[in-house]
């Protein structure tokens, strides 16, 4: 589904990614781990098409298409979703109204009929309930005045409604208490399917106890320095990132 080859990218003239290779097949969950500053979030934002990140080399192929040719909104309508590390507060834009516009933009792209207000509200109320979200969050401005946990829950709620093919979760666990983490993880797990893939970016192993990955990749200084199965995450939990960083540094020289 997703094939990244030799990807290099920079932000504000500073190269952050130095050559990423990663293949994600439909149905798989890949965890991207790594210390702060290793390029995890940069990778997530490049996948989402953030205009502040410039791809300087390499390719990204998504469902056979050149993803880098597509603007952020085109990617979203083709099923690429990123749950933001820092969801943006947008005063005056009603959460449900926005989500309806987003869903119908995606449905239109896929040749589906747009949902009317009643069908839409039935859908979102069901999803909100599953995520134990208060209905009032639907009628509030997008993320405005939401707690850190509410913001992350709202991201997963958007994902559940939009039903992406490829979901990139950028440090969705940060700022979540253990109960919220469980609810959010259950929301993600409910979406796991043979047609859908996840790239889960996280600093901590904790999230991966709830969202069990098929593959774990360790990013250091803009490269994947190790890949393995779930056990790699546990190894990191034991040893920390120190040994990886020195190994990664060694590998570059």
């Amino acid at each position, binding site marked *: 589904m997703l094939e990244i080859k030799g990807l290099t990218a920079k932000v504000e003239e500073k190269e952050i990614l130095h050559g990423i290779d990663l293949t994600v097949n439909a149905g798989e969950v890949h965890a991207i781990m790594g210390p702060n500053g290793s390029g995890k979030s940069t990778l997530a934002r490049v996948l989402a098409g*953030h205009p502040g990140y410039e791809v300087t080399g390499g390719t990204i192929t998504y469902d056979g298409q050149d993803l880098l040719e597509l603007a952020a*909104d085109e990617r979203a309508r083709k099923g690429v*979703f990123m749950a933001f590390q820092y969801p943006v507060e*947008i005063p*005056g*834009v009603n959460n449900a109204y926005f*989500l309806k516009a987003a869903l119908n933009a995606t449905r239109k792209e896929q040749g589906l009929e747009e949902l009317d207000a009643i069908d839409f509200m039935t859908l979102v109320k069901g999803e909100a309930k599953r995520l134990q979200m208060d209905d009032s969050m639907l009628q509030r401005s997008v993320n405005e005045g939401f707690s850190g946990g509410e913001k992350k829950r709202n991201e997963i709620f*958007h994902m559940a409604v939009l039903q992406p093919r490829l979901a990139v979760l950028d440090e969705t666990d940060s700022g979540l208490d253990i109960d919220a983490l469980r609810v959010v993880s259950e929301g993600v797990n409910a979406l796991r399917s043979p047609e859908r893939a996840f790239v889960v970016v996280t600093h901590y192993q904790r999230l991966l106890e709830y969202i069990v990955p098929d593959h774990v990749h360790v990013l250091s200084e803009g490269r994947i320095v190790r890949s393995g199965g779930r056990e790699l995450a546990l190894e990191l939990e034991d040893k920390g990132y120190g040994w990886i960083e020195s190994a990664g540094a060694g590998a570059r020289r």
Partner: protein
Amino acid sequence: MSATQTIDWIRDGQRGLGTRAPAWLADHRARALEAFETIGFPTTRNESYRFTSVAPIAGTAFDLASPEAEGAAAIAAANEIKDSAATAVVVNGCFDETLSAYGSLPLGVVVDGLANAFDTDGSNARDIASQLDTDGLPFAMLNAAFLEDGIHIVVPEGAVLTSPLQVVVVTLPEDKAVMAHPRIVIEAGGQSQATVVLSFVGGGGQPYLTNVVTQVRLGHGAVLELVTDQRETEQAFHTHHLHAYCEAGAILHSRAVSLGGRLVRNDLAAVLDGEGAHASIDGVYLADGDELVDNHTSIDHAVAHCTSHELYKGILAGKGRAVFNGRILVRPDAQKTDAKQTNRALLLSNDATINSNPQLEIFADDVKCTHGAAVGQLDDEALFYLQARGLSPAQARDMLLHAFANEVLGEISVPELRIALEHRLFSRINRYLAE
């Protein structure tokens, strides 16, 4: 001391009013003309007009508009609110009874032509109109010099109107530039509740000047929502002095929407002259192309325990320019005043400009007064967030602009009008951005 200047087209226009006016009115006009000719059209040396040159107005020889204008009926009809309790139409400065319509108004409610009201026994219209204070307001002087007609609205004590009253002011030039100087007098009696919508529209390809004065009196505990719906043509000059006087406990909600005209100057003055009075003074405006929108507001806290809340929001595109001057006067006795002023502007192009100036004059010591101004572009991170969920760049932009304007538009209690104004705002923004 500047020399008196006689402007031929103004003298000619005034003669066009005829000679049948009663003595008080003839006197009122003559004194106003004298006052105007003493100061003349303001220049940019005048502090209040520093950023707003009215030279294009001064340099156009306007004829006094004729009350018979073909096509005015259609323009008025296109801008009427369907669910209004009454619609009073002014064509080229004069009340047009045949175009006006009244539903079932509660007893004592008056919606009439101002000239009619001047002739009506027991009406306050003449007293209020003749007491207009034009000090420092050259266009209000000009309005007084041409005082002839307009609209008089009375909502009597205790009356509660559940549907809006609408005044549609149409100025329609035919083959030459014209001017109209309508006067609107609104009396909201004690404990009354009403919504009044003032719609300013026009037509034709020629320039015109709609120079309005609106005088509003709110009695004890009256609640008045006053919506200014300014949708003049691109050739229009629009000058409006709105003066609102609030007694104790009165609540004024002014919602001024300015979406038309090539040069717009609004002078809004609210006087809070009884304890517990409150004024919300809100506005949203758009200037694109070469347009200029100047909002000068003045809130006079004359007595203690009054509150005012002011929020103006501007959207500027093209070479659009805006001026915002927000004066808050807190007089020595006005302790416990709570006044808040905010001016925000979005610049959608590099050539758009705004001059924003808060003017706080505080002579009491136990007060809370805050002001803030913010000028910027649309938030890139918010745009990206919306696009990353599938909205096109245009959809994302419109959603943010909508949210920006809606803080004011969304408060308008007449849904039909709110929708019409949103539609107008977005069709104009899209026209500009498509170029």
